[in-house]
């Protein structure tokens, strides 16, 4: 069994390219007066979130890696290190990403970690770097367990995860409109991912893909970007702070406050952790479903159109 296997730390090596591409996108926007927007404090917050993500990876990365190496020690399978295995690992890890990302929008405990990535009202390359500091606490490393147990070495799985993250950097832009049709059909693109960052009722809970958009098409969560409905970026309730600490922890604080309310049943307390964002024990808040239902109540003509196909009327 291959115990000592190392791959380059691709995300860290990509940092200079991230900075260079941000400068190129900024220059394009400033010179052409189109293709997106930048704002100093928003971008600074995003970049600090990115730096914090790297720091948390250095400080807490051992937890996931230790878990993976423990699994590697017990699995009898070893698929080796051939190029074909790496490619297969990349594809399967992207499927893993799809589900972790979907959980990240549908389970509040995981959303508490992921929400900060959606907290910018801008959509540019710095938004890509607005990453979580608290991913370890979601325990979503469990979703990678099948890959390790199937015989993909932990270092290979993490390498593929790094490549996945790097791929997703360039799709956080308004500078690129649409890619060629064949590419849009298979791959995640700026257009598809703009939809994912939308707070419009139509675009909520759509396009969870990392690299291959085919997962969304396969699992019924794909919504195309519509010419007639411009994406409005940010959260359903936008933050009133640029403080990275508050951006990183606000949903965790929200969970704590909800769970510790007096007079709740234990089931309610649990539901505040595991139900979708917006769930409340008394129904006083909106989930993405109720937001879509309320939208259709005002605009019934949107029923059955992309993003509203599965919405039931209230």
């Amino acid at each position, binding site marked *: 069994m291959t115990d000592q296997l190392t791959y380059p730390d691709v995300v860290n090596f990509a940092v200079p390219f991230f900075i260079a591409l941000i400068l190129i996108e900024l220059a394009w926007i400033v010179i052409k007066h189109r293709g997106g*927007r930048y704002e100093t404090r928003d*971008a600074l917050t995003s970049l600090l979130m990115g730096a914090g993500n790297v720091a948390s990876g250095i400080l807490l990365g051992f937890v996931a890696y230790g878990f993976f190496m423990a699994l590697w020690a017990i699995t009898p399978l070893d698929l080796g290190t051939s190029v074909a295995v790496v490619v297969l690992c990349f594809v399967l890890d992207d499927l893993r990403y799809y589900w972790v990302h979907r959980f990240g929008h549908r389970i509040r405990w995981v959303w508490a970690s992921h929400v900060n990535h959606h907290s910018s009202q801008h959509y540019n390359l710095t938004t890509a770097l607005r990453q979580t500091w608290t991913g370890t606490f979601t325990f979503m490393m469990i979703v990678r367990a099948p890959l390790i147990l199937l015989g993909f070495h932990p270092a290979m799985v993490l390498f593929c995860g790094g490549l996945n993250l790097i791929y997703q950097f360039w799709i956080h832009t308004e500078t690129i409109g649409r890619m060629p049709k064949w590419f849009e059909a298979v791959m995640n693109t700026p257009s598809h991912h703009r939809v994912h960052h939308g707070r419009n009722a139509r675009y909520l809970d759509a396009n969870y893909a990392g690299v291959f958009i085919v997962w969304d098409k396969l699992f019924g969560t794909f919504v195309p970007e519509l010419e007639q409905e411009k994406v409005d970026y940010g959260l359903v309730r*936008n933050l009133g702070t640029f403080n990275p600490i508050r951006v990183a922890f606000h949903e965790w604080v929200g969970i704590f406050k909800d769970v510790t309310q007096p007079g709740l049943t234990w089931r309610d307390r649990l539901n505040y952790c595991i139900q979708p964002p917006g769930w409340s024990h008394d129904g006083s808040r909106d989930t993405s479903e109720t937001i879509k239902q309320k939208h259709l109540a005002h605009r019934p003509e949107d029923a059955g159109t992309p993003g509203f196909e599965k919405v039931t009327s209230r």
Partner: protein
Amino acid sequence: MPLSILIPMVILGIAGIAVLLHVLGLTRPASFDTQEDASRAWLREFPEHHTTRVVLSHDRHAALVETAQGPGVVWAMGADSTARFLNGAQIARTRKGLRIALPDYTAPRIHLTLDADEADQWPSLMERQT
């Protein structure tokens, strides 16, 4: 990548981009040209709570709104905006206007730049509405 290279690169990269954006004039806060603009910005956050009155600040970076559910403030967040109801707000006068402290971790303090008349009037408007 060794941390001795990564850390300075990240620090210089972040600082450089922030300075560049500021120099390019991209720090200007959003402004509401009309009451309708402010009302639209409010409805973007609270689509079910229509405004019955909008009072723009003199610099047009904030507005006090009245709704059937109570008073609120919509204000510039960088080049964009956000809004909050004023439930539980503690309002204090500052040299530049008002500071509103909210029991809200996502918007703990709203600093409003108001002229002297506005700073005198807005608290009573907020209280009158509550």
